[in-house]
């Protein structure tokens, strides 16, 4: 499923994530789709959202297969608990998930309590975005490719001191 998020959708997602951070006292959270694309994130100061998203989507997908192996359908919540930091992943739908990072000062129970509520709200926004379709903004945005043949360029060779 491809998502096209308008600024309004992004605002709604961001409010949901901000609320989740306040309610759960978590450090950061993000929403990503099953392909590992970052849909939105909040509070991530040092971690790369792209990497968290890629790894989170991978872990969640693998866990989903484990669940199916056990005849469970899905595990709606996956928790990795560390000494100082923990991660909780919660299914938003079959196509997206919410990842919450929290330290030992936050309560696992509180995060577990609020994450599914946030996930339900995110689901509502994504359904809205899906109904809007992939051309939601095409009246105002035209995608124009640059003329350059090379999308990616090699690094400049280091200058040789004279």
């Amino acid at each position, binding site marked *: 499923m491809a998502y096209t998020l308008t600024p309004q959708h992004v605002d709604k997602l961001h409010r949901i994530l901000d609320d989740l951070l306040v309610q759960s006292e978590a450090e950061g959270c993000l929403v990503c789709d099953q392909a590992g694309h970052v849909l939105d994130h909040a509070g991530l100061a040092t971690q790369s959202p792209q990497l968290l998203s890629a790894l989170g989507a991978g872990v969640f997908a693998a866990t989903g297969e484990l669940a199916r192996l056990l005849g469970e359908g899905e595990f709606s919540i996956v928790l990795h608990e560390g000494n100082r930091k923990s991660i909780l992943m919660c299914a938003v739908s079959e196509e997206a998930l919410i990842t919450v990072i929290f330290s030992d000062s936050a309560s696992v129970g509180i995060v577990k309590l609020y994450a599914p509520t946030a996930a339900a709200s995110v689901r509502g926004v994504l359904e809205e975005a899906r109904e809007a379709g992939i051309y939601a903004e095409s009246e105002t945005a035209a995608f124009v490719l640059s003329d350059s043949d090379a999308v990616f360029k090699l*690094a400049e060779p280091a200058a040789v001191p004279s």
Partner: protein
Amino acid sequence: MAFINYGSREIQLKIVYYGPGLCGKTTNLQIIHEMISPQSKGDLTSLATAQDRTLFFDFMPLVADVIAGFKTRFQMYTVPGQVMYNMTRRLVLRGADGVVFVADSQWPKMEENVESFANLEENVRLQGDSLDTLPYVLQYNKRDLNDVAPRNYLEFLLNNRAERQLSFESTATRGEGVFETLNAVARLVLDRFITTHTGRERQPRELVLV
């Protein structure tokens, strides 16, 4: 599939390197990471075994300024090539916008190349897509070795669908052919993205909320 964020003016696209075990998929990403301009790349992360065989995937984010007014992010992945990791390959392939099929040019690897390509076709089909529409390019790697099949034979074996795709010879360990392959698949993915989002197959207007 592609993700567009009009809030942050970002487009995200996913490219997967596919192919049999030890064909050079991870080497491609390592060389790209080594040689690409620093402002275009993020960290390369490998989920590998102690023997450096890919266990889950390799991942590297790239950024390019190719669509006016948008930052275009490419999420680059490799799959584990070993036959037993098929379920992992399916998971990594989810939502791919483009594929690079890396073949090992050595004669003894032909059967594995064909099996892996058939496996790619099957896994793409299982996610509701088709190689008839999904952009992909072929890379014939390890051309520096002695016991390699001629390019024509590899074309006959792997590039024999109704529509022939772009293919490149490479020696990934030396960086030869790596960027040509990367730029070709990126261009195909971008062309498809532009066609899909501004092209003829527009959805009915009544479904559009602006």
